[in-house]
């Protein structure tokens, strides 16, 4: 019932310490690839903390991310608020949005949830654009800070490490155990006394919290914020793919998925810029038909076979 050992935590800590030195050696193109990778680690890990055990596929990442980035930009650009204050506020708006979505949809079947989150970012983008065009005028939102790629990288690393720590704590808690039971059989979960709706909403709220936080951190990178860009639905799908490719059954699964995927994605974007969507589709099918439990699932299967042969 308790998952996650101190060894696991130690390994992650060592990896994080190692990752923290990256900006000292990398810069330019490679640093920017690392920033993107770190962003996916934070997003995909928090995504799979919720979706891994519950099997609810959330496509709301872009909504949270966009909300974080857009609100931070609005606060800084229109109300002259400092970056850090806005960064402290935006995660909570993400959490509130997640709570509302969760309360409306999580008591229903998984299909409703997917569909609802699928269009959510699109709808928010629509609304924000409409409000901007009609009431605010088409002024741009500027996020001007002194933070460079390396600062953004370190901030994202801190978030990713926090997500890990939280996930590790949840895995060791009653909440983590209850999620595994919910994932196994929700009827059983209710009949042993688990409040399934609350457990799911709590986890979904953490996803929203970190999604908005990461969106806020990334805002200085774009410096000019536009709804069509921060609410891009592609992000939601990329996060799903990374988490599932690595394997959402384990906390460290998405971490395994990020590195190969980020490299592949960069290559495809560079050499076949018009075929990115096709590529995403193919990866989806590969996951469903060949890696249903991700790379981690395959690894564990192989280990199991080796153990049995002995």
């Amino acid at each position, binding site marked *: *019932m308790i998952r996650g050992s101190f060894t696991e935590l130690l390994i992650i800590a060592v990896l994080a310490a190692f990752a923290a030195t990256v900006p000292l050696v990398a810069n330019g193109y490679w640093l920017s690839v690392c920033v993107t990778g770190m962003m996916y680690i934070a997003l995909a890990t928090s995504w799979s903390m919720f979706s891994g055990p519950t099997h609810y596929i959330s496509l709301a990442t872009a909504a949270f991310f966009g909300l974080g980035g857009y609100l931070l930009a609005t606060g800084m650009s229109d109300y002259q608020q400092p970056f850090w204050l806005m960064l402290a506020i935006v995660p909570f708006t993400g959490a509130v949005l997640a709570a509302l979505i969760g309360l409306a949809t999580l008591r229903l079947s998984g299909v409703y949830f997917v569909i609802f989150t699928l269009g959510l970012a699109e709808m928010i983008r629509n609304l924000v654009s409409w409000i901007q065009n009609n009431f605010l005028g088409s002024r741009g939102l500027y996020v001007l800070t002194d933070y460079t790629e390396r600062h953004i990288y370190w901030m994202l690393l801190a978030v990713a490490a926090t997500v890990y720590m939280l996930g590790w704590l949840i895995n060791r808690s009653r909440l983590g155990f209850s999620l595994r*039971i919910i994932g*196994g059989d929700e*009827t*059983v979960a*209710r*009949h*042993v*006394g*688990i409040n399934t709706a609350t457990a799911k909403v709590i986890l979904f709220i953490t996803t929203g919290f970190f999604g908005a936080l990461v969106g806020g951190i990334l805002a200085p990178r774009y410096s000019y914020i536009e709804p069509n860009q921060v609410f891009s639905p592609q992000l939601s799908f990329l996060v799903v793919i990374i988490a599932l490719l690595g394997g959402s059954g384990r906390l460290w699964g998405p971490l395994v998925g990020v590195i190969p995927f980020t490299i592949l994605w960069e290559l495809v974007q560079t050499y076949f810029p018009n075929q990115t969507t096709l590529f995403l589709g193919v990866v989806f099918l590969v996951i469903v038909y060949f890696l249903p439990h991700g790379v981690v699932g395959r690894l564990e299967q192989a280990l199991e076979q080796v153990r049995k042969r002995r």
Partner: protein
Amino acid sequence: MARAKLRVERVTKRFGGLVAVDGLSFDVNEREVLGIIGPNGSGKTTMLNMMSGAFKPTEGFISLSDRQISGKAAQTIARAGVGRTFQLVRLLPGLTVLENVVAGAVFGHRRQWGQSAKMVALRMMERVNLNISPNAPITELTYIDQKRVELARALCGEPNILLLDEWLAGLNPTELEAGIDLIKTLQEEGRTIILVEHVMGAIRSLCDKCVVMASGAKIAEGSPEQVLADPEVIRAYLGDEDE
């Protein structure tokens, strides 16, 4: 007269036009074993599902120790001390045997965690004569052991009342004997149990009282000998006797 532990009052359940349970009332007293019997489709499992909160009654009330539980969510009822097993065994495939069992102790009526929950689970595994490694994957169990895991899970919550939905169904003769003996030891511990059962031998030897259902309604109530001799009960079972 002893105060009723669980009281079912004029409970009706409709699924669209179909009346699955029709104005059913009965009491279960402390330390009593009640059997709910009746032909297939007579509404027994529906009644059990309403007691455990899987369904909400369309009309009527169910109360546990004078506190109303009907209409409450399954998790609330479980925490109030109602434990159950399922007609078709429901185990959690990704979890070990111990994890399956301990779920009852962690979230149930007594919310335990860590070593103490584990101890309870191990004790209950022993209690139901489950002689397998606690760390075994759940998928490698025999049918009766799967049923034992479910029973142990329900017992872990230290329930005030235990609902067994055809727990003895599908067992071979040797297993059946062991199963009846096991439930008998639970009865001797002074537990309050409601059984939905088809196995007449088990009903005779275990139940203090029986409620017979046909087409959703109660057609007889009394001791097993009484109800099984009742002409109306025999009529309800005719054509169903080859079971």
